[in-house]
């Protein structure tokens, strides 16, 4: 049905098509979470909502920050800030794979013309205490998404396993548009390129991430976020506490990019964030409905 769709989709048109498609599947279309995160999974709409027995479907774009991946705008395939398109459906629907393939058709990738494959890739987030099984989705040898059946989040077994799909939007758009440099992407179909919007940011943030970030301050902020998170958990405020967990995670990523964390310290930082995440997940479940208490105590 979509095989004849024009190849030169603009970046923003691609997002709108995905919104329309997943909206039609009953997803709540959310806006990005207003904090710095490393991946769309960190959005509370995924991390927290994946827990408990309440069904949930959501889709949103999440700007994702990977300080160590910055290349000062000089690498055509690497960015320290990029967009993920994130879908979560709880419980996982029986036709999740078919829905996903349908969404690729919607953005112009016909699976009879292209070679789509599901290649084993188990997903794990040590900082979130989360894992799941699934695949990398390949289109003509390129990874165009990550498909996961969540099994555990915040150290708590998922009562209703979710289906999570993450698209790397820039890479997908480059493929659909046939562009070899991310900064050449047609952003709006009206003359604005991706580089016009983001090239300067890539240069400046790379310099910040690698050269200027004040590591002493970052270490202090990490400790502050950790303390604040614990205090908010004591007050049973799961969502504000989770914000502090997200903060701590991003501060850790910045410290890591600055190369000041040794291998041994690294494990310890990850463990500290995981402890926060677990506390937030437990507090969230607890506040959702009393019936969830058994889910917490079982793990």
């Amino acid at each position, binding site marked *: 049905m979509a*095989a004849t769709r024009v190849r030169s989709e603009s970046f923003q048109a691609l997002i709108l098509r995905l919104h329309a498609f997943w909206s039609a599947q009953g997803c709540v279309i959310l806006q990005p979470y207003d904090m710095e995160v490393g991946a769309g999974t960190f959005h509370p709409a995924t991390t927290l909502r994946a827990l408990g027995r309440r*069904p949930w479907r959501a889709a949103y774009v999440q700007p994702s920050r990977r300080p160590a991946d910055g290349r000062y705008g000089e*690498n*055509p*395939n*690497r960015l320290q800030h990029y967009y993920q398109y994130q879908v979560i459906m*709880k*419980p*996982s*629907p*029986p036709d999740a*794979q078919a829905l996903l393939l349908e969404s690729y058709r919607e953005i112009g990738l*016909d*699976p*009879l*013309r*292209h*070679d*789509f*494959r*599901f*290649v*084993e890739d*188990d997903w794990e987030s040590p900082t979130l205490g989360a894992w*799941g*099984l*699934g*695949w990398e989705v390949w*289109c*003509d*040898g*390129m990874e165009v998404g990550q498909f996961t*059946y969540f*099994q555990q989040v915040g150290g708590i077994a*998922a009562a*209703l*396993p979710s*289906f999570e799909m993450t698209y790397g939007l820039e890479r997908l758009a480059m*493929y659909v548009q046939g562009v*070899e440099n991310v900064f050449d992407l047609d952003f709006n179909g009206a003359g604005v390129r991706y580089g016009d919007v983001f090239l300067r940011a890539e240069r400046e943030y790379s310099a910040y991430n690698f050269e200027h970030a004040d590591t002493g301050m970052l270490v202090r902020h990490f400790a502050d976020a950790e303390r604040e998170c614990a205090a908010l958990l004591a007050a049973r405020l799961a969502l504000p506490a989770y914000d502090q967990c997200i903060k701590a995670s991003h501060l850790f990523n910045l410290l890591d990019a600055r*190369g000041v964390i*040794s*291998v*041994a310290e690294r494990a310890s930082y990850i463990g500290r964030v995981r402890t926060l995440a677990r506390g937030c997940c437990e507090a969230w479940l607890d506040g959702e409905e009393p019936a969830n208490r058994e889910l917490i105590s079982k793990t």
Partner: protein
Amino acid sequence: MPELLLELFGEEIPARMQARAADDLARLAGAALAPLLPQAPMTFHGPRRIALSCTVAAGVAETRSSERGPRIAAPEQALAGFLRKHGAARDALRQEGDFWVLDRISPGIAAAALIARELPGLLRRFPWPKSMRWGGSSAFTWVRPLRRILCVLDGAAVPFDLRDGGDDGHGVVADALSEGHRFLAPAPFAVRSRADWQEGLRARFVIADAAERRARIAAGLRDLAATEGLHVAEDAGLLDEVTGLVEWPVPMLGRIDAAFMDLPPEVMQVSMRVNQRYFALRDGAGRAAPYFAFIANIPGTDGGAAIVAGNERVLRARFADARHFWDADRRHRLESRVAALDGITFEARLGTQGERVRRLMRLAAMIAPQVGADPARAERAALLTKADLVTGMVGEFPELQGVMGRYYALHDHEDADIADAIRDHYAPKGPADTVPLAKVSVAVALADKIDTLAAFFAIGEKPTGSGDPFALRRAALGILRIVRENGLRLPLRPLFADVLHASGWPIIEEEICDFLLDRLVVQMRADGARYDVVQAVRHFADGEGSDVTLLLARAAAVGAMLGTGEGANLLAGYRRAANILRIEERRDGPHDGPVEAALLTEPAEEALFTALAHVEADVAHHIAGENFAAAVESLATLRPTLDAFFDRVTVNDPHPEIRRNRLRLLARVRAAMHLAADFSKIEG
């Protein structure tokens, strides 16, 4: 006999788990359906399905048997116990003579009923390496969601489901339907038999049989490569993996931009094989060709043009990334990166990579003269061994450590033997890997492994039965292989002692050498060689300075002698002597005093006494000259004299002093034999 076909169809199964799962299915079904005497099993496995077919009996016939119970006169409790044991009521019993008898009937069962009864439990307990939950209605787990079960017996469906109380078993009910290719023929179709199923799948773009798929892929790649006058680089592991990634293999060929062909072949290999599962192509002269081959799962509506273009594009992006690191890394001299190793932890308790490099330099320089290498060159190579760990390329592709160091060293105009040593100091990385032979490489490779063993033993991280997280067994085997395959005369104990001492670690070289010799024995056993001979000589490792080559020469000579008829007879004589001594010494204490010539009365014992004096001197002389073959040959000359002694002389003479003297003579025979090996450790 009726044919059974079982197909478990679902979402994509990881390639590495498929073959094992098919084997498990055959094994478990064979056990569960054993009453039906399943025959001629065939298994099938692929990305979306594992399947089994076999013939089975039409059913299990009713059987009758009688169980004799207690005597009629037995107490009531005995009868109650008998009834409880068999779950029977009293009125089911009949009397036969003095006994109660229970007639039992095992009802017959039709094959379909037995299959439907057994399979749900089998599937619930299926041993996937890792299983998952999905959906919201069932706790049934599988490797990835299970979508369909086909179960056909003799042309008809055998319905069963996975329900369990309120759990709906994901609503899956076994029937006679299968599905073809995900995109080319997705509609379900009905199946009557295994042959029907296989042909039905083939018509729907699925090759069910993995071996056939693999053969098709191999042939397709070969033909495709030949169209450009090329051939495919052999890669059985990749072929296996790709067989598990496609149902309808379509070989395709992509081009590599000439601009990337100067990347090191190992770098291209990582991007192509590890990341993309592409096959490398070679020209007639074996050089890398600017093409790659891959296996698509679909021909493509445009003849595959979009698929090839897409794959070429992906590889271009990967190569562009590699090219970036390759160019950027070469802007710095390798030597200039050494300082950064002081900021990298090797192991929390063992300090930084920088400290490790300084240990390796010292050790390599010390080993060098003993393996014929120039100490200064070995030290230089050791300085650079770990420098590539802080390059961009190795940061991105850790598996290229060593390999990149060699390229960057050559770029810096380091000498070739030093550059090779940087690459080869990790070798051998496993049983299939080759051992370094160049002298500088040998020195640095040994230093790396000796330091690893010493360091981890020093902090108590010895391998255990279940775990060896620091790969110390591999390091030990590496040392042994380097020494053996280079025929090195290298006492290892002093080297371990020196490393431990210089680093202020506990002095535990004995423990480490013991571990090495244990590995040697294990390795000989695995090779099917005579490991008992090594056990018989390993106590000489001390005296011979833990020189493995010398130890093995001694073991080989002893082993060769034992392989001859003469040697086997000598061993028999030795054992006879040793047995007599063991019994008598238990009573008398050791008989190790001097033999008195005056007390020798029989000619046969005089002959043995004379021969011994000669052989002892001869053996000691040959061993001192490391001529073990001559030493054991000399021992073997004792054989006829010893045999004659046992034939003609009674050891336990009535005169106590004569008896004692003969026991002492036998003790001297034993001691002479022990100059070569402890023959009591010889098996068989």
